[in-house]
């Protein structure tokens, strides 16, 4: 196991990148702490697989360094880095048995047979593969194959990190949950450094202790699931995480009040109280508030037009417009939704202010 440090890392697939937009991965400095479970979350094409392949050594970064426990491995080939990677589509050696599949990386490294057998037994027990050891890998289900590719990584005791590249994509929904639980249990028990790439926020938030959110080749926020939910650092994090995502409204901020101008009628503006005062904001200013921190009532707040109500079981999602801007409100089971003349209030403590997409942090915090 190792601590992985990325220093000024950036990558472009073009031979001579000019501007920043040529980079699939924009400059990044980060330390992956030893033994933590990370999720790398982002939409397709945001550079998360590129980052993973750089860490595993399948791609050499255009600039910057990678250190494993302080040792520079930027130019080291995959084999020397001692990492394990589980791919999107299960990779197994079809013609070999499950046992031989698990033993494969050890035999390639020239371990004595007795030690190989012992490790294979141990890993098979961990993953629940013990009773299919002598079967051929070819005919197995996708989830069993994924367990084998995971096992090929775990069988090596000196493995520095386990990397997962959307490993549950081809797994049946009911097995997904089981495998994820098993992964978490393995992490708790053995404490491998794990990096898990996914575009599925549920997977990321349930698996990881820290989530790294990427957007257009840039890391926009690193935090615990709770931090991402309560204090998104970027509007992208706001609407990518959460279901539905954060409401983002264009606004002008004066002191501790934000004025949201009506989209249809230029003269009208709605005042939204903020948790604290802001000054000297530059660029495109927006406010963001999660649907969970908005409340509908008949009496107080800003007038909204309710367009649709979706009942999702535990709560309802109210789709509405505020001065022509679409907003979502989450209403609890018992809460009444006014039939006409509904009004909305936002919890001032949870209204964030964003300038050019980035959260404006309190300088005193």
């Amino acid at each position: 196991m190792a601590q992985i440090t990325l220093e000024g890392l950036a990558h472009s697939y073009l031979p001579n990148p000019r501007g920043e937009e040529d980079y699939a991965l924009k400059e990044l400095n980060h330390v992956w702490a030893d033994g933590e479970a990370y999720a790398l979350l982002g939409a397709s094409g945001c550079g998360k697989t590129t980052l993973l392949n750089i860490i595993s050594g399948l791609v050499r970064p255009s600039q910057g360094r990678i250190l494993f426990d302080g040792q520079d491995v930027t130019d080291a080939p995959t084999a020397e880095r001692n990492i394990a990677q589980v791919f999107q589509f299960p990779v197994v050696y079809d013609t070999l048995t499950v046992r031989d599949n698990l033993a494969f990386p050890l035999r390639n490294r020239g371990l004595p047979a007795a030690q190989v057998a012992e490790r294979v037994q141990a890993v098979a027990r961990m993953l629940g593969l013990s009773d299919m050891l002598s079967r051929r890998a070819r005919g197995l289900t996708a989830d069993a194959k994924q367990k084998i590719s995971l096992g090929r990584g775990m069988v090596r005791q000196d493995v520095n990190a386990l990397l997962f590249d959307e490993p549950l994509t081809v797994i049946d929904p009911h097995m997904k949950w089981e495998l994820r639980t098993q992964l978490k249990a393995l992490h708790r028990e053995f404490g491998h450094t794990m990096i898990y790439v996914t575009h599925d926020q549920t997977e990321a938030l349930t698996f990881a202790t820290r989530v790294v959110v990427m957007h257009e080749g840039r890391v926009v926020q690193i935090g615990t699931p709770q931090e991402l939910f309560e204090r998104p650092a970027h509007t992208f994090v706001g609407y990518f995480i959460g279901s539905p995502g954060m409401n983002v409204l264009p606004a002008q901020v004066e002191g501790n009040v934000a004025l949201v101008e009506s989209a249809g009628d230029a003269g009208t503006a709605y005042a939204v109280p903020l948790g604290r005062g802001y000054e000297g904001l530059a660029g495109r200013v927006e406010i963001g508030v999660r649907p969970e921190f908005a409340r509908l009532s008949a009496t107080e707040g800003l007038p909204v037009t309710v367009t649709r109500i979706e009942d999702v079981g535990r709560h309802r999602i109210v789709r509405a417009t505020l001065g022509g801007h679409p907003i979502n409100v989450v209403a609890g089971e018992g809460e009444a939704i006014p039939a006409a003349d509904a009004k909305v209030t936002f919890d001032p403590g949870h209204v964030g202010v964003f300038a050019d997409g980035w959260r404006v942090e309190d300088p005193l915090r």
Partner: protein
Amino acid sequence: MKPVDNRAWFLVLPVLVLVAFSAVIPLMTVVNYSVQDSFGANEFFWNGIGWFDDMLHSERMWNALGRQILFSGIILAIEVPLGIFIALNMPKKGFWASLCLVLMALPLLIPWNVVGTIWQIFGRVDIGLLGHALAALGMDYNYTRDVLDAWVTIVVMDVWHWTSLIALLAYAGLRSIPDAYYQAARIDQASRWAVFRYIELPKMRGVLVIAILLRFMDSFMIYTEPFVVTGGGPGNATTFLSIDLVKLALGQFDLGPAAAFSLMYFLVILLVSWAFYTVMTNLDREDAQR
């Protein structure tokens, strides 16, 4: 609506007619000849399995079959490994990959008798580049006189003509292997040989079965090229089954024995191909179940 309407059978009629004219009727004329004898004047007499019996006791035919099996065996043993080796070493993408593919496909586009003519001239001692060069090097090479030289010439010609087919099929099989397999192999520190043995070969297996089947059937039926190069000689040394069949049917006009022989020839190819295919697919299935 009636659940069963037998008029639907009329929909099958076009196919029946087509198959009848393209396969069944021509085949039946051969069957017809194989069980009858004629002394001319368009009079035919029933001969039962007489011709088949004759053919099964014909030393000439057994010899031709022996040569045929030897030939197919040799060219498969050379072309399959060579084709795989070429496919493994072809460029993966870009200009050179396209160029390779075009160059590889060229021999496949040349008509059989032209291939035969090319090699017939190429190998001649008096004017052929190969033959003349070998003679100039002091080698006693002459495919019209020496049995071994004739065989070598024909085998090399077939390898030149058809290895591309196996290489192209194997190449297609290799290209369909996802990158993740190679990446996983690197992470597992697999050797080049292990990558071939446990990833590439199993993934190519399907196309290789097809390639071997095609090459077996085609080489087993070979006629034009050896006929043009050696005419079946020297002596009968390169008289393969179909060359012998033509001698029998058109040279000696023994239509009855030739028809019986044709049917057995056809059945042998069908049987071997079917057996090979069944064994390969059954192995596949057993693998999957185990």
